[in-house]
């Protein structure tokens, strides 16, 4: 088991962001973490990435309690742009290369080309769509064991979405696990092989796509509309 979360809870003051989440992720799968805004998807991802602290429950990564060294194998991509304002696009690659042993500079260059990004452009002057592509290129240029992609399709136009989904599928391998949080279920339904529905900080349904379709006789998108509609 790559990741085991047991009874996870995170409160901001009295407000729960994540409640009693127990979840296991296996290697070699692409999971969709589904739910509307504010359902706790981002908080859970940030807990696993070590960005959110002071939570209750336990997170085991490869059987051991999560610690900061595990970030060398966990690639988190936040939903907002986060690069330093003084950086050019090529500096982002240098930064990742400086700190992540699994970063592949050649793959980063190829991804930049595919995303039509100019390495000499300033990261802070990019449009939201271009910034989203840069985040994705930097994250997917790593050979991580666990990718946590928070809303990877946000701000991306329809044509580019297909390209991004292709890149994500290419990155997927039997040696890694990808978790994509999104509310754009139609866009990822054909890509994911597991779905986790989160509502008000709790998991309301989880399983493989095959199991879910067989059990409910509905597409994931229709089930999503039913759960959150």
């Amino acid at each position, binding site marked *: 088991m790559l990741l085991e979360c047991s009874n996870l809870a995170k409160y901001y003051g009295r407000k729960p962001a994540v409640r009693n989440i127990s979840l296991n992720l296996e290697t070699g799968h692409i999971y969709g973490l589904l739910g509307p805004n504010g359902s706790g998807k981002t908080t859970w991802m940030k807990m696993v990435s070590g960005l959110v602290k002071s939570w209750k429950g336990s997170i085991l990564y490869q059987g051991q309690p999560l610690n900061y060294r595990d970030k060398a194998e966990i690639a988190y991509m936040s939903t907002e742009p986060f690069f330093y304002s*003084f950086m050019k696009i090529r500096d982002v690659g240098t*930064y990742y290369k400086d700190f992540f042993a699994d970063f592949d500079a050649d793959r980063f260059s190829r991804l930049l080309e595919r995303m039509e990004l100019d390495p000499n452009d300033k990261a802070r002057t990019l449009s939201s769509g271009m910034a989203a592509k840069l985040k994705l290129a930097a994250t997917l240029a790593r050979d991580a064991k666990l990718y946590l992609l928070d809303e990877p399709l946000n701000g991306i136009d329809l044509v580019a979405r297909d390209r991004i989904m292709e890149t994500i599928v290419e990155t997927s391998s039997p040696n890694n696990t990808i978790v994509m949080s999104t509310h754009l279920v139609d866009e990822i339904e054909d890509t994911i092989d597991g779905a986790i529905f989160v509502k008000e900080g709790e998991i309301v349904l989880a399983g493989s796509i095959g199991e879910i379709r067989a059990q409910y006789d509905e597409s994931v998108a229709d089930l999503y509309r039913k759960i959150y509609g």
Partner: protein
Amino acid sequence: MLKLFKYEWKKQMGSKLIIGLVLLALCAFYILGTLLKKDSWEGIAMVLLMLIGMFAAIYVGIESLLVLNRDIRTKESYMLFMLPKSAYQILTAKILAAICQILLTMLMFGAAFMVCFTAYMAANESLAEMLNFLRQYIERIFEVEIEWDMVLLVLISMFVSWISMIASGFAAIISVRTVLSRTKLAGVLAVVVYLLITWGTNWLNGRINALSTGPDTEMLYYCLGIGAMAVVTVILLVFSGWMAEKKLSV
């Protein structure tokens, strides 16, 4: 650690460039005054060098705190905290960068003063006469007698105080951001906590200084004061690291 340091260093290079350009302009003004025998130009340049030096030392310290605050408050925090580095390593890199920033600033000002003195000597006096002139100048302004060993202690004390100021700021920002996260009130409260820590540190220093009973013990207690401040600084940094490692969410 070195790579963390490199990026911390980069974050504050803009202000060093500006300080460097200002110093160049002031040196040029001083040298021009020396060449043209305009005493008033030399005086203005020297006074400005001193004033800007004091301002720069304070600003460089505050800038280190502003950078930390930004690194916690904004989304740029992910750049630091997604790295496979402990919070202790991150804070150590930050404090080292802050120390190197002030050393660089001091070096830049030292070089500027040297350039001005060299220009003065080339045009007027010998080194001994120059130092004598400087001592008399300071004695006249501050009405004190200069003891060079005390000058060294004062410089060390200022340096330790400066690092203590940064450590207090780190502790205040991290503890308040841990509790209040990104609320607007957090900035104001961080200043209040910072002032409280500074008051506590100064109170401790005052207690130690009060132990001094005469001129013979003055230097000893001065050293004790520096030691106490160094210990408080280390405690504040360890506390900040622990908070950031265990409690701080970004």
